[in-house]
Every structure is written in C-alpha cells, then in structure tokens.
C-alpha cells in the first residue's frame, strides 16, 4: 500500500483567503507534515471542486505534483460534521459529536469495512464531508500505522489530519 493522508477541505488553507494572522496555523502545519510523507506524485481524492482545490494546493505547497496515475501517495480531502456548536456553519446538531466519535474510531483503527459502511445520509444532515472517508476503505488495511496529527473542531467543524503508512 502507498502512503495515504487525510486532511479537511478548509478553504482558509488557500492563499486566496490568507489573513494577516493565520486562523488555522496549527492545522496548516499538520497538513504540511502529512502531505510531505506522500512522495513527489500525489493523487487527490475529493468530493467537491473546492475540496479538490484545497488538496491540490497542499500538494503543490509541499513541492509535490498532482498525479492521477502511478502516484507515490494519496491525499484524501474530507472532514467530520459542521454542526458541532451553535456558531458552527450548520448550527448545533446534538447528534454531531457522537457521529464524529464514531468516525474517529474508524479512522484510528483503521477499520476499512466500517469506513465503507459510514451512514452518509446522516453525514449529509450533519454537514459532514464523508465521501472521502468512505473512499479510504479501499486505500487502507487494518494493519497500517496511523499517525493522528490533528484532531479538533476549532470552528464547529471536525477536522482530522491523519497519516497512514
């Protein structure tokens, strides 16, 4: 298996939206380290054009190139719910924390079978972007080394940055 990294599709990571003070400095640093482990040619798996843009930016920022064929690593762009607090983009949904907790267990395993069976309908209700997490099922084996570099919901959205090697 080639190395895989998971990052969230946070638009604030794009240079178009740079602030004087980086509101996602820790997340950005974690993404940089995770993407650096993917080698020079990286396939990006993303569910939306904007998530793809974030992934492609992180790849080029790491000095690598985006490659569909014969990649040295795979970057999956996905994240948990966006309904974790009253100020979250989708407001507070009481189910969000438990949903993210279940995702956390599947990702930390990793548990490919469980990832393939994620409740995507509930994910959509919770404004989560889980398509990439489902796609991880085909990219991971349960024996892989898991390196959780970031796990937090600083703005009401659950982010993970995880490396699999």
């Amino acid at each position, binding site marked *: 298996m080639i190395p895989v990294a998971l990052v969230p599709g946070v638009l*604030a990571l794009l240079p178009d939206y740079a*602030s*004087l003070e980086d509101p996602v400095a820790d997340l950005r640093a974690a993404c940089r380290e995770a993407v650096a482990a993917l080698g020079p040619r990286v396939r990006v798996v993303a569910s939306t054009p904007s998530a793809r843009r974030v992934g492609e930016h992180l790849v080029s920022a790491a000095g690598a190139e985006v490659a569909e064929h014969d990649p040295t690593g795979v970057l999956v762009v996905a994240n948990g719910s966006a309904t974790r607090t009253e100020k979250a983009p989708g407001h507070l949904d009481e189910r969000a924390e438990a949903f993210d907790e279940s995702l956390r267990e599947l990702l930390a395993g990793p548990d490919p079978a469980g990832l393939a069976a994620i409740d995507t309908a509930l994910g959509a209700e919770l404004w989560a972007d889980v398509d990439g997490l489902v796609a991880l099922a085909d990219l991971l084996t349960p024996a892989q080394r898991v390196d959780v570099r970031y796990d937090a919901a600083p*703005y009401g959205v659950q982010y993970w940055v995880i490396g699999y090697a």
Partner: protein
Amino acid sequence: MTLQLGRHAFDDDAPLMMAIVNRTPDSFYDKGATWTEDAAFERVRTVVEQGAEIVDIGGIKAAPGVEIGPAEEKARVVDFVARVRAAYPGLVISVDTWRAEVGDAVCAAGADVLNDAWGGADPELVDAAAQHGAAIICTHTGGVTPRTRPYRIEYDDVVAAAIADTVAYAERALAAGVARESIVIDPAHDFGKNTFHSLELTRRLGEMVATGWPVLVSLSNKDFVGETLDLPVGERLVGTLAATAVSALAGARIYRVHEVVETRQTVDMAWSIAGRRPPRRAIRGLQ
C-alpha cells in the same frame, strides 16, 4: 516606493500613523495640554503604545498668534527631540518647522523628518534635510506667509496647483540632495485653502497619489471638517475619519493625526477594502 524616513525604512504598502505632539501652549486642538515637556513626553509614550510609527513634534502653532522666534522655537523642541530619540530608538521623529535653522538643530538632535507645513517658505530647509539624511514633507500652501490664514484665495484648479507646487518642491529637495525615497508630498488641507478647496483635494486625492510621490494627509479635526458638518473642535472625529477613509482609498501613505487608534482602524479598513491589506483574521464561511 520604499519610504526612508531618516533612520527608518518602510515597505511601500504600509500606511503610517504620524501622531501630533505639540510643544505649544496654544494649539487649536489640545489647547496646551502637552505644553510642558513632561506632558509632551507622556503624549509620545501614549501614541507609541497606540502603534504610531511617527511623532510630529511642533513648537509653534499653525494659526496666527504670538511671534515665536527661532531661539524660542529651538528651546521648545531641540532638547525634547533628543530626549525622545534616546527613549525610543525605533520611533520616527518628525519636527513640524519651516525654519532651516531649527531643522538643522533638530536633525542634529536626532530628528528623522522635517515636516515643512509652510511649503518651502525658507528655501534652505531642504539643505538641512539633505545634510542630515533626513526626509522632508513638501506641502502646498498657495504661497502664503507662514502662520497666516487664507483670505479670498482662489485657484483655477486647486488640485493642479497643489500637484504643481508640491512636485516642484519635491524636485527642489531632490536637487538639493535629499534622497528620492525620503521625499513626501502633502496637499495641506486648509493651508491657503477654504473648505471647498480642502473637500476637492480630498475628493481628487488620487491625482496626487498618481504623481508617484508618497502622499501625507493632515486632516485631523481641521476647520474644513468643522465647517462641513458645522461642528466645533472636539466634535470632529467622525468627520475626520470619513475624510481619512476617502484618502486611504485613494492611497495616502502617511496620516498626521490626533487620534491614532481610530485613524489606524479607519485606514486598515479602507486599505483592506482597496485590496492592499488582508483581513486580520478571517475564518467565517471558510472553516
């Protein structure tokens, strides 16, 4: 263009706050509040804490009044400049004077900028700036005598006149040996101008910016704001900030102010609207 203000260099996209520090008993806004040296020094400390990059120290009020000779003017500002220089090595010190003799003395004491509010009334001021490697502010007054009020002055085109005079002054400073990056132009609102003139200068400030010389504006609590809104000194901050926002949008680089914090916020906001400054911290809708 990079700005070189004496010892200090600034990037070409950085708007700067120049805080007014009066060593006068009778200036129109503070009415002598910082007349004593310790009070003036306290004012410096405050504006530095508020983030001003420049202090503009003046020993003579602009309006007519008791005549202050060069000896008295020097007594008010030279030692004070030395004290501020020693306490704040990173601060740009400007001195508001039209006299070459005073300019020479304050530069020797550590001043970085000579702010000639009276448009080159003393032709040797540029030599003092050149000799000390200081910057100079070239203002437009329409040729009036220092410390006189405008009276029935008219222009065919006040903006064209301001550009012609300040650029000519800038070229004269350059010829005298002042560095190109140390020359700033200032339309000088209300100096040799009525309210209509100052409003038009504000409205068309972009034409001055387009000369390529960095532009300073001195708008703070002035009579053109007061007359426009019919408000006395002390109630002109909002009007000042409105004029500041318009000037910032046009690209003025230095803001000579009484209120540092409010002006900085206004300029930062306009600078960001103009696309020259990112927001401080934007995450809404981007998380």
